[in-house]
């Protein structure tokens, strides 16, 4: 009897299902659906005001949709008690915004360990390794308010990576940094994905982001206008088990 070995099915760690959102009587998202496969780097792109951030925030439990569903690790984000989704966010997700949102009155050290310590999963050696990796080891006792924009961003990235999240959601993480800084950030993200298998979802307008991405989801006027696959490990459109596969429109406009 011949046994045909199937490639392993990609696991979907996050997804949006037919999400509609309005804000200030304006339709922001119109039936957005996509999947984020485990271990992938997904770039969400599109023009300003197209709904990219809202889509990401919907995934992160920050923007409840009018209809549709958001899923994180198989659980509906908005159909479970807030404490449960908070626990998921704490233990499995790293969230980064355009502004670093650091505690400016506290030191780099305090900021780096802040999340992990509060989440009860601080590994101080891992924190130290990230401080070195991100080039922050000689600024540990400086207030973060005294840092440059690029340095702040690195602290912010370190802070969300140190707890060891399985999924990172980043909203334009490099909007405040120069080209060399951008390159460094993207290199770090790729290394994290490669070494720790972390799934990365990021909004960006950078060409460098496209270079490290496995897939790109283009959102225009609140709709998924296209998905692009740069590598083929686990694209939703190609995966029959993908939750979103039925609704995906893989062609480019």
């Amino acid at each position, binding site marked *: 009897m011949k046994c045909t070995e199937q490639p392993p099915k990609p696991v979907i760690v996050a997804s949006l299902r037919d999400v509609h959102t309005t804000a200030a009587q304006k339709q922001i998202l119109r039936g957005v659906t996509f999947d984020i496969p485990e271990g992938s780097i997904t770039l969400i792109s599109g023009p300003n005001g197209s709904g990219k951030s809202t889509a990401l925030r919907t995934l992160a439990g920050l923007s409840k949709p009018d209809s549709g569903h958001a899923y994180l690790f198989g659980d509906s984000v908005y159909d479970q008690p807030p404490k449960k989704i908070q626990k998921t966010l*704490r233990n499995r997700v790293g969230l980064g*915004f355009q502004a670093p*949102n650091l505690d400016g009155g*506290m030191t780099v050290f305090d900021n780096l360990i802040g*999340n992990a*310590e*509060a989440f*009860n999963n601080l590994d101080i050696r891992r924190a130290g390794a990230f401080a070195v990796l991100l080039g922050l080891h000689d600024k540990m006792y400086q207030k973060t308010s005294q840092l440059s924009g690029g340095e702040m961003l690195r602290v912010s990235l370190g802070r969300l990576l140190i707890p060891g999240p399985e999924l990172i959601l980043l909203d334009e993480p490099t909007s405040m940094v120069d080209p060399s800084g951008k390159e460094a950030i993207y290199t770090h993200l790729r290394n994290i994905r490669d070494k720790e298998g972390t799934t990365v979802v990021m909004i960006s307008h950078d060409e460098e982001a496209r270079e490290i991405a496995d897939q790109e989801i283009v959102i225009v006027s609140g709709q998924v206008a296209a998905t692009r696959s740069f590598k083929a490990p686990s694209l939703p459109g190609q995966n029959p088990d993908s939750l979103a596969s039925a609704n995906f429109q893989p062609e480019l406009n």
Partner: protein
Amino acid sequence: MTSENDENIHHSVDSSLDAGLQMVDAFESEYNRQNRLRGIVGLGFVAAASTAAVVVGSGVLDKSHLGYDVPFNEGVQNVLTHIDDGLSVAGAISFPLALAGIGIVKVRARSSQPTQSIDRRSSQELSDDGKRVGTIRKGLRATVAGGVPIIASGGVLLGSLTTAIGTEITDGPTRPIRAFGEQMPGNIYLVQHEGAMPMQDSYVSRDLIDSVTSIAADRNITTRSLDRGLGDITFNGHTRTALFLGLQNPIEPIKWDSSSCQNIPVLVDETAGTKVGDTIKLNDTPAVVAGLSKDISAINRVGVVIDADAMAACHKKNANHPYHLTSLDTDLQTGRDILKQANINGEIATVISEDRYIQNSEKFWRSNVKPITNLLALVSGGVALLSMSGIMASRLIRNRREWAAKLASGESDAHMRSTEMLRGAKDGVMASVVGTALATATTPLTGLTESGMFAAVGYKEMTVGWAVGTIGSVFGSAIRVLRPRKVIKPNEYTR
């Protein structure tokens, strides 16, 4: 077909133009509306200013008080009279509790990362407060809090200070009683009535006292009488109010030789600033400072000890002027027996203990003073609470982005609440320590304002300050962080 398209294009352009013009009109209309409103409000201010100027200029308000009558309520007075006791107990509990809470968190933080996070964040401002971190501040961060909550410390200072003033005004008048009590034999007093005290007249006739003294002597019981009077003392051209204590049969140097009312030898409380040998005037009668005494002044009353006979003859112009009280060196029951035996004319008189006499005085002053000073202490507590609440509110607003990012990342409301409550406790402890230290240093300065005033911070004043500081801070903080997501909106503040 082309012409149809052109028409459509023209129509579309016209529609857009119309819409644009409508928007400009709306803009202009809104701008004009705001300007009209501003003009009306401006005229209102001008009218109010004119009215105020006329009212102030007319002098109508010079003597008026814009109050309203409130009927006296004994229940309220009773509650206020004893509220310092309650605050003292509360402070004695809350301050050690706050200290213990901080200590437990710090110890527990060694084995719990979330607790460590709560302690770390509650010791410093999240956002940059723009101050350079000096050694003292670093020390504060490592131990208690990031800074000194100035307004809450002021509340604590006021709480301790007003309590100390209340205590002094209540207890101060008993100081001379205790001082002259040392000169008197025994600790029971023959007085006119049960409510006798320095501020209440008490007249016991010399006939009755002679009879009591005689019977007491037969039983080997010593007695001594005392009169008291209120008057003036003039020294170096300044006249101040005085409390005269007329002692029966005083020893030198104030024994009066009965020759004249000139240069009567007296003891004057050292707070008056006189020296031995100085000539002074007591109610316009010349006297000489024969010695200095201590602790016989009451608030705003310079204590003067004088021979009771001199006081009767020279000040009261009546050599048989009754005494205020007679002290007997025996027990209460024996004293009453002696009075019963001696009082053959049925004169109104009674025998009370020295403690009762002192309590009468304290009760009088307490009901006069304590409700007001305690009200002030309560107001200080309210000020501390409101100030800490306000500080916490502004701190939450200032740190909204920082907290929003944390809440968005999944940190629980309870974690944030614990952090800010612990910060409140740390602020409360710091305010209590700083406030009571300031109160201890500054309260005695009230002596500059009133002669014979010896207000000072003791256990009670300190514990009232602690109550104001810790309870005010913790509750002030708590009411702001009960529902953190009402203030901190993660979706809004992380954009």
